């Protein structure tokens, strides 16, 4: 059930107050020192944001994707930038959401209360060195044994794996070469971390350094069929579950893109309204006004599309409709936000390149979203082939 209008404004006000509590310098420091933002994490946990999608019986608030989206957007655009989305996405979208939707009663009891009170952070292990956009080609394999399964494989860019207590692990339980339908034989497991069979090594990266993305090597990890998300009956049927993680991931990253874009526009407007180079404030020049106005307009449109994606999700709509709306929202939001940050930097001139003006940090943050959770090109491919019906150029 979604939060009623009167109460939603209080909820978003809380999000705004938390965001404002952390000045831009806080994020600059956390990013520079590559430190997890413990104080911020505690605040969003105390505010109940990790339990937005979790039913009340497990300590959550049982609200909607729309509420989650709006909270994240509010955090991002009021100063947090990507951080307003990042931690929530890792734990709530990769952990809470699939468990709420598909988990067994036992799995719900085991993980959800800990997720809500911030004790269990989560991560999702999907991407592999040889399988990024083409999930079906993943090579991490869970072989059947007498007791259950033994998993081997390597995952890459697994954000938060260094801190996580839980991992949604995407495996194949049937080889791609042995299935008729490539969606068959994918199985999702819930794995407890840290685990001596799972080696986690952080990868140095371009931005978002208040969280580590890691290489994860899995060697002879023993699991049982009760570790399968949804229990034994979900064996080989992970693809349908995974969709309900990947599309919401696009939705929350859309919130991040819009938030970062709006934040950059606000900073640019403030600067351009006072900075004078030839007498008048530079903000009076239309060559600087139009890109900001245009980015703003596109971000607002992307916001409507993201809300549409939330509506489809919240009404248990068809997954094709969900994928359509969330891919469109993601593509448009990222294009517009990239433009917004680009122009915010341009408007700041040389200062835009200086760390203390923060725009360069947002530039590094927005750069991620054109690559992940899905590249702009793969999102456009989806729209082209699955919505417009054009022939596919790749199999």
């Amino acid at each position, binding site marked *: 059930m979604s939060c009623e209008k*009167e*109460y939603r*404004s*209080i*909820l978003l*006000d*809380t999000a705004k107050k938390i965001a404002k509590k952390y000045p831009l310098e806080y994020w600059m420091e956390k990013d520079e020192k590559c430190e997890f933002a413990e104080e911020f994490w505690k605040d969003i946990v105390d505010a109940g944001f990790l*339990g937005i999608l979790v039913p*009340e019986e497990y300590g959550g*608030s049982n609200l909607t994707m729309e509420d989650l989206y709006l909270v994240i957007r509010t955090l991002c655009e009021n100063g947090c930038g990507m951080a307003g989305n990042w931690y929530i996405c890792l734990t709530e979208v990769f952990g809470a959401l699939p468990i709420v939707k598909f988990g067994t009663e036992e799995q719900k009891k085991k993980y959800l209360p800990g997720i809500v009170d911030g004790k269990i952070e989560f991560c999702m292990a999907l991407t592999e060195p040889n399988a990024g956009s083409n999930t079906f080609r993943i090579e991490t394999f869970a072989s059947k044994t007498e007791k259950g399964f033994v998993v081997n494989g390597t995952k890459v860019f697994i954000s938060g794996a260094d801190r996580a207590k839980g991992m949604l692990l995407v495996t194949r339980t049937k080889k791609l070469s042995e299935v008729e339908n490539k969606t068959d034989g994918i199985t999702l497991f819930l794995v407890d971390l840290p685990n001596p069979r799972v080696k986690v090594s952080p990868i140095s990266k371009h931005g978002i350094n208040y969280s580590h993305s890691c290489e994860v090597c899995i060697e002879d990890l023993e699991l049982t069929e009760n570790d399968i998300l949804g229990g034994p009956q979900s064996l080989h049927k992970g693809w349908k579950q995974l969709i309900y993680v990947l599309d919401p991931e696009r939705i929350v990253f859309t919130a991040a893109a819009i938030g970062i874009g709006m934040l950059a526009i606000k900073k640019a407007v403030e600067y351009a309204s006072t900075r004078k180079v030839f007498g008048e404030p530079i903000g009076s020049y239309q060559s600087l006004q139009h890109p900001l106005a245009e980015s703003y307009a596109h971000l607002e449109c992307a916001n409507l599309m993201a809300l549409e994606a939330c509506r489809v999700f919240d009404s248990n709509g068809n997954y094709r409709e969900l994928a359509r709306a969330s891919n469109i929202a993601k593509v448009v939001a990222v294009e517009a936000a990239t433009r917004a940050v680009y122009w915010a930097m341009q408007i700041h001139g040389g200062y835009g390149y200086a760390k203390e003006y923060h725009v360069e940090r947002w530039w590094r943050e927005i750069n991620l979203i054109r690559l992940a959770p899905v590249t702009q090109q793969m999102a456009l491919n989806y729209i082209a082939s699955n919505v417009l019906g054009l022939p596919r150029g790749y199999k």
Partner: protein
Amino acid sequence: MKAVCFVKSVPDTETRVRLTGNRLDKSEIKYILNPYCEFAVEEAVRKKEAGIVDEVLVISMGPSRAQEAIRSALAIGADRGVHIEDDNLDGSDAIVTARVLVEAFKKEGGLDNYQILLFGLRAIDGDTWSVPSMIAELLGIPAVTNIVKLDINGNKAIAIRMVEGGEEVFEVELPCVFAARKGLNEPRYPSLPSIMKAKKKPITRYTISDLGIPSDAVGKVGSFTEVLEYTLPPQRQAGKKVEGEPEQVVEELIKFLREVANII
């Protein structure tokens, strides 16, 4: 022991104030719970959490948006709300507001039920700073305003009041009015679980006839004062930069302080 908080819905501090002619343009204003009232509510809720108070009532007078302020207070942790809404109230000044609030308070049992009456020191919109003291006067009880600390011991309270250059410590008997200023506490932001709980808390609504107040006793007609017009403060002038050798600069600054600013 029970506490009551009198709260007001005011424009958000981030709202850009616009005028249409000499009247306030309210069309784009976002309203919030008056930040000073937040201190009052937070204090009452803390007293409840400390086991000193067993109920926190919130009373607000105003158009439908006053309910949002009440809901915010309920989300912080107050137990129930009273909303006085009536078209006749439009244009009421401070004393009329105080009288109406007193009637609503009496309807809820008044001083027989509530011993701690908490207010924000001032509302950031009207900024009259007067309603708390007026209500104390109307009820015939003491008031300590501008407080930064409040300790309740049985039937007595120790309140610390900020004055210029120091603090005054008051010991008062309850019931008493207290008006909170910044520093009394750090108000929490409502967590999602408290917001969910707030949904189930009741808000009672009164019109002036429910309170037995005739319509000519409120609004513009019932008020002593009337706002004739609004004007925006003059735009800030750019600062003046004094440059040169130190001796020269000091001389020029002193001249400025004497002749232009008239400070020395």
